[in-house]
């Protein structure tokens, strides 16, 4: 019964998406207001049916209705309720259903927010969104049907994948990731609409940028949450392994970051319109490529779903999207004529171009490395690997160069700078740069790249903080405002700019933390019997014993380790080995003692509670905690940059155009 209801809802979603897509394109072409209205209504209908089908699945999961195919596949009566709820995205079919929900939410929200604006563009944009929605509904209706009916249902099911049950981050990471991926559909639709209409003015670049920024924030968080999950669960002490699926999430992030920056040039100078649209479209195509990589079984990854039948279907969609986008770009790109000029020389304009070049190069390199084993397999029939050593070697120089541009770019004025300006802009930040370099050296960093990162990081820090707070100082001088009033005023007027620099500050911290944590790790492997101690750095660990923890859905053997640092008691850590019914081999769960400076990371290799022995990997990871904090700063900065869309939006959106009009007329 429930299964039939679910299938019906999915068919209705498919129907409204396909119809809405068609209506959207026709209405866009015919400039029909009625058609546009119906495209909107069908977009809301699509979102509603997706919501209802997801609620139906949650109901089936929570009532343990094993006659529903997906519930029989991942449900279990013995797992905690939160695991049952997040089981929705723990396996292939359910994750696509959830994908549909996220898509419905994004499409409905974007349709609502643009309801009275851009009448020329929106029907096309809705047409594109719903075409993508129709594809995912089709996946759910056929190749990845979650609502299959099981004729003779079992009394209980196996429960979701053990690795996913093992940590609460698995409840948070996928929604962020899907929002990041699916949300890119919205700017993609807007970019296609701009091409189809043949115009990208200052009025339209703003929504394009903001709708790109929202999924970008989600994707930023998702990438780092994925790394955090790996760090807290996989037990090897790292957060990033350049695994194909990790790369798959990084690729659209890089392209989107490039697009967010080139959009600034579109807005300020009226140049790079075609390039920006291309980057936005590439971002979306990379999310589809990522979906294929995660779900086709062609790539070897710890994060991927097992071999599935939907690979070919996604590949057909990817191929169609690639071919249509290429056709659209080559036919319509010339319509987006530039309205201004870039300034050459050592200027901020140039730095924007260099930044874009570096990000695109980064994207290309990661993409090349990720698919290269497939190239060799196809060309020579040889199975080879491209792994972390390659990516590290390539990404470190690019990352350091990006940090350099992030510091120098904002320090330079728009347009050509005089020698004098250059000196004033570039010399003072060298102070902080030198301080950070010396500080790193004094604290024991010896890796050349790390020291270079610290140097550029210090430079960037001074420039970024200066740019963040300079308008406040200027306001205080110019308007005689107090500090708080000046902050509030410059905040509400320049929040996008301020937010962007907050993001820069966070990004700078992430890069520094990665550089420091990856080159200054201390490690030791020990085998301890009860009562024995081991020490690493300033820490001393005493193995107090092992015990067994039995829960309904799993059983763990955990080691108790009393931690001392420099003679001071820090408490007890419990790294463990967990046995799940659904899995033969145990899963090690590390224990982490975090502080601002460094993490003490304990991972169990082997443990015997009867004999009272434990084999441990002890790591001291400096600055890892800063990555999570700095990412939160980045996300916060992104949110601040979104703020003005709420209240002063119309005035702000029209202002540059007004300036141009007034200036042009004088």
């Amino acid at each position, binding site marked *: 019964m429930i299964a039939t209801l679910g299938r019906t809802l999915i068919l209705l979603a498919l129907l409204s998406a396909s119809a809405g897509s068609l209506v959207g*394109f026709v209405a866009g*072409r015919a400039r029909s207001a009625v058609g546009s209205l119906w495209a909107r209504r069908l977009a809301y209908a699509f979102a509603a049916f997706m919501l209802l089908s997801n609620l139906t699945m949650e109901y089936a999961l929570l009532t343990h209705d094993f006659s529903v195919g997906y519930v029989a596949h991942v449900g279990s009566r013995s797992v905690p309720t939160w695991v049952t709820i997040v089981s929705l995205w723990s396996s292939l079919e359910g994750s696509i259903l959830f994908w549909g929900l996220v898509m419905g939410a994004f499409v409905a929200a974007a349709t609502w927010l643009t309801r009275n604006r851009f009448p020329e563009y929106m029907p096309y944009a809705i047409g*594109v969104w719903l075409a993508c929605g129709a594809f995912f509904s089709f996946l759910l209706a056929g190749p990845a049907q979650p609502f299959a009916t099981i004729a003779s249902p079992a009394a209980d099911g196996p429960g979701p994948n053990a690795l996913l049950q093992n940590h609460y981050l698995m409840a948070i990471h996928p929604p962020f990731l899907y929002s990041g991926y699916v949300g890119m559909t919205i700017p993609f639709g807007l970019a*296609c609409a701009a091409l*189809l*209409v*043949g115009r990208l003015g200052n009025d339209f670049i703003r929504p394009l940028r903001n709708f790109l920024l929202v999924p970008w924030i989600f994707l930023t968080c998702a990438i780092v949450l994925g790394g955090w999950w790996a760090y807290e669960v996989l037990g090897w002490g790292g957060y990033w392994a350049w695994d194909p699926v990790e790369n798959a999430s990084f690729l659209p992030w890089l392209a989107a970051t490039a697009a967010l920056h080139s959009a600034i040039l579109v807005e300020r100078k009226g140049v790079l319109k*075609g390039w920006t649209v291309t980057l936005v479209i590439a971002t979306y195509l990379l999310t589809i*490529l990522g979906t*294929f990589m995660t779900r*086709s*079984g*062609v*790539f*070897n990854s710890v994060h991927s779903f097992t*071999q599935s039948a939907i*690979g*070919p279907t996604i*590949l057909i969609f*990817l*191929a169609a999207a*690639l*071919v*249509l*986008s*290429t*056709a*659209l*770009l*080559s*036919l*319509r*790109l*010339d*319509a987006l004529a530039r309205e201004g000029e870039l300034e050459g020389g050592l200027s901020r304009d140039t730095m924007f171009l260099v930044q874009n070049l570096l990000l695109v190069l980064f994207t290309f390199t990661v993409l090349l490395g990720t*698919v290269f084993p*497939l*190239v060799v*397999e*196809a060309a020579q029939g040889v*199975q080879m690997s491209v792994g972390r050593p390659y990516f590290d070697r390539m990404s470190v120089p690019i990352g350091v160069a990006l940090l350099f541009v992030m510091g120098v770019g904002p320090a330079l004025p728009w347009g050509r700078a005089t020698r004098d300006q250059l000196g004033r802009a570039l010399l003072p930040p060298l102070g902080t740069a030198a301080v950070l370099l010396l500080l790193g050296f004094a604290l024991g960093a010896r890796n050349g790249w790390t020291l270079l990162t610290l140097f550029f990081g210090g430079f960037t820090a001074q420039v970024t903080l200066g740019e963040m707070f300079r308008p406040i100082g200027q306001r205080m001088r110019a308007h005689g405002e107090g500090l708080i009033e000046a902050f509030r005023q410059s905040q509400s007027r320049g929040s996008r700019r301020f937010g962007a620099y907050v993001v820069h500050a966070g990004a700078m911290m992430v890069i520094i933390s990665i550089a420091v944590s990856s080159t200054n790790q201390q490690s030791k492997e020990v085998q301890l019997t009860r009562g024995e101690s081991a020490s690493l750095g300033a820490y001393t660990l005493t193995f107090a014993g092992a015990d067994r923890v039995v829960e309904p859905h799993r059983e763990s053997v955990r080691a108790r380790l009393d931690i001392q640092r420099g003679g001071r008691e820090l408490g007890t850590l419990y790294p463990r080995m967990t046995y799940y019914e659904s899995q*033969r*081999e145990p899963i090690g769960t590390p224990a982490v003692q975090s502080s601002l400076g460094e993490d003490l990371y304990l991972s169990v290799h082997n443990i015997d509670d009867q004999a009272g022995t434990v084999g441990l990997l002890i790591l001291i990871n400096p600055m890892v905690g800063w990555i999570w904090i700095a990412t939160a700063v980045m996300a916060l900065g992104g949110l601040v940059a979104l703020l003005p869309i709420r209240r002063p939006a119309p005035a702000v959106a029209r202002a540059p155009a007004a300036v141009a009009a007034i200036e042009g007329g004088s």
Partner: protein
Amino acid sequence: MEVSAARPARVNVKVLAAASLVVVPLLAILVLNLGRDPRSVRSPLVGREAPGFALSPVGGGAQVALDSLRGKPLVVNFWATWCVPCFEEQAALSAGARAFPGVKFVGVIYEDEEARSAQFLKERGEPYPSLMDPEGKTAIAYGVFGVPETFFIDGGGRIVEKHVGPLDSETLALLVRRTLESAR
């Protein structure tokens, strides 16, 4: 996606060429690799000399060396008591060891404890010896990815076949026959 008829559509050849340069190879590679299982890696050892070993049997006794097993075809099966598929193929292997007197069988324990393996062997009564591989050196030399994996070595010490996953009687018979034929 259709193109607005407002302006005559002219193809920007540069854009088309640049995009095709990325799109066409990418699609070609993905299509060519579709359906391939990245988890099955072909062994470079097939057709080569089998790596030597000298290991003690489970429960103790004189070391068994590869050299001492030469002259007759040899089946080397990597297994462990914690591995369910190994358990499943054990019947086929035992039957095979009895059915092909001209072929030697040997098991190699993969990442498992001696006591547990001995217990298992006693219960099941396997007709051929299993050897302990304490630091996994033999498994590494044979390029083992997981268990069960089975190598078929001819009388001259050359690896003829490698089978990944549990064996059934038919496959075992087929691979043993190929090993026997290759010896001639």
